[in-house]
């Protein structure tokens, strides 16, 4: 941390290395943080339940715009009955996890970074160490765990609302037959390949990555107001890049 890092490559590499070590510290502290289960529940409320509104509204609109676009394109080929299928597959495999993770980084990741950063800047973390309270177990782990648990749940809500939005546009507005919409979807969408691999695994990984980056940035921020501001920005930038890069890697593995 103290060695002079002269260029962006070594700086980024050092950040990734520090982040990895921090992840190990968090994982090692999980058993110790079980005493602070209530804190984890409070964080789950904060990062999960409080993000529900934005996730639901965005999911609805993503599903609606997908229904609209796909209907338009598929009508060229006379295949509008496949709208439901394509909406479901697009949302389950890609849009659901990725958009939820991006929103989650913006909505919950930033506030976690800012909160921990301010704790650091106002010496609260140092005070915890003085009082023999492990700050990793009390501050970092509950927020990390809350992110890992909340992301898949938020993603499921996003996907359900997305399907509903696609149904709203496709069936209620554009007049695709209701039965065709659902039967084509259920005939094609697969439980393991789409829902389990797409919705669940991806969002668990994204939740872990976003929470790790948010907690790490807050924890290692320089204790100044400028430092907190930079850390918050870096959380969003690093999370977005990590989500999209990991999405490709995960898709390649889970396909």
């Amino acid at each position, binding site marked *: 941390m103290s060695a002079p890092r002269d260029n962006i490559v070594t700086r980024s590499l050092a950040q990734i290395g520090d982040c990895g070590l921090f992840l190990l510290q968090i994982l090692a502290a999980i058993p110790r943080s079980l005493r602070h289960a209530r804190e984890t529940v409070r964080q789950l409320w904060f990062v999960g339940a409080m993000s529900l509104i934005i996730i639901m509204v965005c999911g609805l609109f993503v599903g609606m715009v997908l229904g609209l676009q796909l209907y338009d394109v598929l009508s060229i080929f006379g295949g509008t009955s496949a709208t439901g299928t394509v909406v479901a597959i697009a949302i389950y495999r890609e849009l659901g996890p990725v958009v939820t993770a991006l929103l989650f980084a913006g909505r919950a990741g930033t506030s976690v970074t800012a909160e921990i950063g301010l704790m650091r800047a106002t010496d609260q973390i140092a005070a915890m160490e003085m009082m023999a309270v492990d700050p990793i177990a009390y501050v970092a782990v509950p927020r990390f765990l809350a992110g890992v648990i909340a992301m898949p749940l938020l993603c499921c809500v996003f996907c359900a609302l997305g399907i509903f939005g696609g149904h709203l546009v496709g069936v209620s507005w554009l007049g695709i037959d209701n039965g065709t919409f659902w039967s084509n979807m*259920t005939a094609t969408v697969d*439980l393991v390949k789409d829902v389990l691999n797409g919705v669940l695994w991806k969002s668990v990984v994204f939740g872990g990555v976003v929470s790790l980056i948010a907690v790490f940035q807050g924890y290692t921020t320089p204790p100044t107001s400028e430092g907190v501001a930079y850390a918050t920005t870096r959380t969003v930038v690093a999370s977005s890049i990590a989500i999209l890069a990991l999405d490709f890697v995960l898709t390649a593995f889970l396909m």
Partner: protein
Amino acid sequence: MSQRPSYAVGTGLFIVLGFAALGYLATQTTSVANTSRGPSYTVEAHFANIGQLKERAPVKVAGVRIGQVQSIVLDPGKETADVKLAIDQRYDKIPTDSVATIFTSGLLGDQYVGIQYGSSAKPLANGGTLALTRPAQQLEEMLGKFFGAGGAADNLGGSYTVKARFTNVGALSAGAPVKMAGVAIGSVKSVLADPVKLDALVELSIDKKYAQIPDDSAAAVFTSGLIGTQYVAIQPGGSPDALKDGDELVLTQSALQLEDLIGKFLVSGSGDKKPDGAPASSSSSPAGKH
């Protein structure tokens, strides 16, 4: 007991909502919705060709789903596929002499096993075998039959050969039918590029029965249907003299390229009709009034 924090209920609701959404996605929008639970029994069927049939494909009677394909393996030592069908217990009155056929839903749809009831009074038991099966219809074969119906004229009376030159034969190949008035009268013997005249020299083998074709008739390369095979059509002329062996048809019309046709069609046909309620039509009308 310590006081319950205010956020605990909300967090619990959030978790329940998340799992409810997951359950909805998993059971209502995936193929799980189609698989029937409950007891089933297994019957076997041996097919010569299963086409694209997959495991978990539906088994239907009169279009109604009664079970699914459990497993597909190649019969050891034989060139047939052993397909195991898991059929719901409540449909236990399937006659033993029923016929299992592999059908395709729609032109491009998935394949499924259809069972047509026989007349036997004895129902199939668990582990029984459907002895009567019909293999999957290959689309290629069907198209071949359909478009090439009567394609090969009976060659009993011998044939004679005439030549025709085309600037473009499209996908015409040897063996393609030669038709007059839609009736096959022979077949294409060979398609060769002429190295000197730089066009295609096609030899047509025409049945001797049809010896009265005027020698000023025209030959054209046509396509049967949109995606069908190509054939040579003879359009009779008015000359009193008939074609003889080795003659050449002077008037020819080359093949129309499907790409050209579709290109023309798409360019001229786009934008003249919109589906009702489409966004383009509804959003453009108020914009036009301003």
